[in-house]
């Protein structure tokens, strides 16, 4: 067993074409919850912060990003292991996410979306009385 990491490739989404002509990839995502806040971590290399769009409609959070090309000028592609293209992925949120407090931050191609659970939805403990 080696300690070196291997990673699943980003995969093209089911609808692989855009009007711009590029492919759409499904960004790899981590979802982790801590202290009543759900954090999404999405890998969107090549996407600058202004090119990310996050929309919430009927509990469905849609995240899309338009990637710029990393093509170095005047050079020919001789070996390709990954494709470039836009990103899109949708998540269905549970009812108790507070839509007004959703925040997002883009850094080094990694989008971090924080989804706090609503205060009113924090679990309440119900005491059981013995009859």
């Amino acid at each position, binding site marked *: 067993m080696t*300690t*070196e*990491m*291997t*990673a*699943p*490739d*980003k995969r093209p989404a089911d609808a692989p074409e855009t009007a711009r002509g590029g492919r759409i990839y499904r960004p*790899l*995502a*981590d*979802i*982790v*919850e*801590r*202290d009543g806040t*759900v*954090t999404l*971590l999405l*890998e*969107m*290399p*090549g*996407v*600058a912060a202004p090119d990310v769009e996050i929309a919430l409609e009927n509990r469905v959070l849609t995240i899309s990003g338009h990637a*710029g090309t*990393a*093509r*170095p000028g*005047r*050079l*020919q*592609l*001789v*070996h*390709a*292991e*990954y494709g470039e293209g836009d990103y899109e992925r949708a998540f269905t949120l549970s009812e108790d996410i507070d839509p007004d407090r959703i925040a997002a931050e883009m*850094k*080094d*191609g*990694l989008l971090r979306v924080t989804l706090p659970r609503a205060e009113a939805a924090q679990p309440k403990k119900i005491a059981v009385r013995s009859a």
Partner: protein
Amino acid sequence: MLYPSTFAADPFALMRQMGRDLDSALGPRLGAGTAAFPAINVWQNDEAVAITAELPGIAPSDIDITIKDNVLTLSGERRAPDLGDTAIWHRRDRAYGRFSRAIRLPFPARDDQVEARFINGVLRVVVARPEEDKPRRIEIKAA
């Protein structure tokens, strides 16, 4: 799975296609999932070679690029987010840990001819070809 019988140009195309289908059927344990990280694209012309790699979520200070003769080594570490023991992981697509890849260049390069940039999680390393190694065009003189 249906295989068309029109592989006139390449008799091995069917075999390769079946191999790919088998890889994807076996899932990430065997096929694409064990691919080396990071995936790279290589760009080239007579004067330079460029290598691009997607390294999202890795700080530039955690990426090491070393070059010796004609081997460029890209290594580093992606640290897992420090969330403590109370965090509950609902989904984990991304991989964390150390990575290293050695890439053979078509010419020996020197340190001062390498330029690396890291923009929005995409690393781009451009290695210029030394002057003495460049192909020279020989003029043919008319008699």
